[in-house]
């Protein structure tokens, strides 16, 4: 039937180079070569991709693993079928003149954190280093940060969450020079969690038609990613073409593509179980309100990538 070749992918943010691989695959006809008819749905600040998946609005979604594991515990069995992003791009960016040099200096400071399922790595990091997040003298005051860098520029927060590929560049674009800033990469703090994996509903995987479709989808997507890594400028140009808002700037997207390439570089698409275990360990080490309460079972599979990458 016709659905055998239709794939809808739900992104977790608006069209930008973070998702270049998929747009490249679409634009360069990699999906078409696989006989696929792919629709990419951009996301937004209030849309939860797992919810879209649950409602049947999409076949696959991109998600950060903490959020996906939380969804599993909420009774929505999503499974990671591919992990194009090897490394985490999440970090905290702070003003140097606040005197912050080490994590210990966070005490008494105000820190902007993204919520919406993205807060868990931060919370578990803080609980690992023993800093309370209740806003007391000795702890940090947490702000729910909007998805922009204003709290830092306006000095409403001493540190904010940034992605290496996007928000950090925006801080620099605002005229701030790198040596006014101090950054803490989650990757370097040992609390990195997996970002931007491809997830599907577990029940669908038992359907061979669906499985085959995903194999082709992952294969084409990875081809897209590798193409994008090699041709960052063109990839950014393709992303811009698909940006319906018309508000993205070329320079920013090219820079983003460059940073993204660093994150995808180490991955052939298959999830590295060691990264998974580290992610789970980080989350289970969480403070009073952990994302997940137990070691997840069957949250990832190599079934798809094994077929796709051969």
């Amino acid at each position: 039937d016709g659905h055998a070749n239709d794939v809808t992918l739900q992104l977790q943010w608006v069209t930008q180079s973070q998702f270049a691989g998929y747009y490249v695959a679409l634009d360069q006809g990699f999906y078409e070569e696989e006989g696929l008819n792919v629709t990419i749905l951009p996301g937004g600040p209030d849309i939860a991709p797992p919810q879209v998946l649950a409602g049947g609005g999409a076949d696959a979604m991109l998600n950060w693993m903490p959020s996906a594991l939380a969804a599993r515990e909420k009774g929505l069995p999503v499974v990671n079928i591919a992990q194009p992003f090897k490394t985490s791009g999440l970090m905290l960016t702070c003003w140097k003149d606040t005197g912050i040099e080490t994590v210990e200096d966070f005490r008494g400071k105000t820190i902007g954190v993204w919520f919406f399922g993205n807060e868990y790595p931060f919370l578990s990091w803080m609980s690992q280093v023993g800093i309370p997040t209740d806003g007391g003298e000795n702890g940090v005051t947490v702000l729910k940060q909007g998805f922009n860098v204003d709290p830092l520029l306006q000095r409403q927060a001493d540190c904010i969450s940034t992605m290496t590929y996007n928000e950090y560049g925006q801080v620099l674009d605002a005229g701030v020079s790198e040596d006014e800033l101090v950054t803490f990469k989650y990757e370097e703090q040992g609390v990195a969690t997996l970002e931007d994996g491809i997830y599907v509903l577990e029940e669908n995987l038992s359907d061979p038609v669906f499985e085959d479709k995903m194999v082709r989808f992952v294969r084409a997507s990875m081809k897209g990613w590798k193409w994008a890594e090699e041709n960052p400028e063109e990839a950014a140009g393709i992303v811009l073409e698909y940006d319906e808002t018309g508000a993205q700037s070329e320079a920013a997207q090219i820079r983003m593509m460059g940073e993204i390439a660093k994150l995808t570089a180490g991955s052939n698409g298959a999830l590295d179980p060691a990264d998974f275990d580290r992610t789970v360990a980080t989350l289970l080490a969480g403070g009073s309100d952990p994302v997940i309460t137990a070691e997840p079972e069957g949250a990832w599979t190599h079934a798809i990538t094994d077929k796709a990458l051969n």
Partner: protein
Amino acid sequence: MMAFASAGAVWIAGWWLNTRLAHGPSSDSRRVSLLIPAIFGITILIMWEILVRGLGISAVILPPPSMIGARFAAEIPLLWADFNQTIIKGALVGYVLGTLSAFAMAILADRSDFLTRGILPVGSFMAALPIVGTAPIFVKWLGSGPESKVAVVAVMIFFPILVNTVAGLRDTTAMQRDLMRTYGAGYWATLLKLRLPAAMPFIFNGLKIATTLALIGAIVAEFFGSPTVGMGFRISTSVGQLALDLVWAEIVVAALAGSAFYGLVAFIESRVTFWHPSQR
């Protein structure tokens, strides 16, 4: 199919009961006029429960009312903290501030026909600025704390109240005004003894609209930046965690608070404008 059939049956039963009550002898008593909407609401809830369970809709899309109720009961301290942050510190403060400044502006505008002509169109233009656009700007200016929520609410309710108050202050008949002129009454006497009382029905109209706006404004503004407490914060983060039962519990709080607030203002209105034909 079974689900639709039983939901339909519940609907018919509820409607039948309400029709009986609405046409019954004591249909205007306070008790019955609370009972009827309550029955309507309960009917909807039962249908909701039946449909969600019968059609197997996932709880991460639409949880059944029983689950929402259970979550509500379990999270009362959390809900209370959120309520306190958003409604008390945000919406109410903004409501008072917005109302007072709208009154002040209305009285200023009202002093001259020229100002009124100028302020009303500009005012309705400003009122058309959508909150989803203005809220992030206020968060940027005033930070994530309650101050930005207060500002959003105050700005949002400012123009409805201003427009209503100005319209109300002008809603006197020529004869009522002429009467004051024959007494040689000055501006303030006319304002206090004629125009303010005459404006009350309009002012309350604005105040009632403002109650629902204030709530929505305070909650929505938290979507764009907030401390880690508050109804808008909870709703937006819980959606991300797929804790839809908690989202709906917060929506229930918003609906209860909003209806109570509206009811309170309507009650004061009936006391203050007892003389107006619509209240008799």
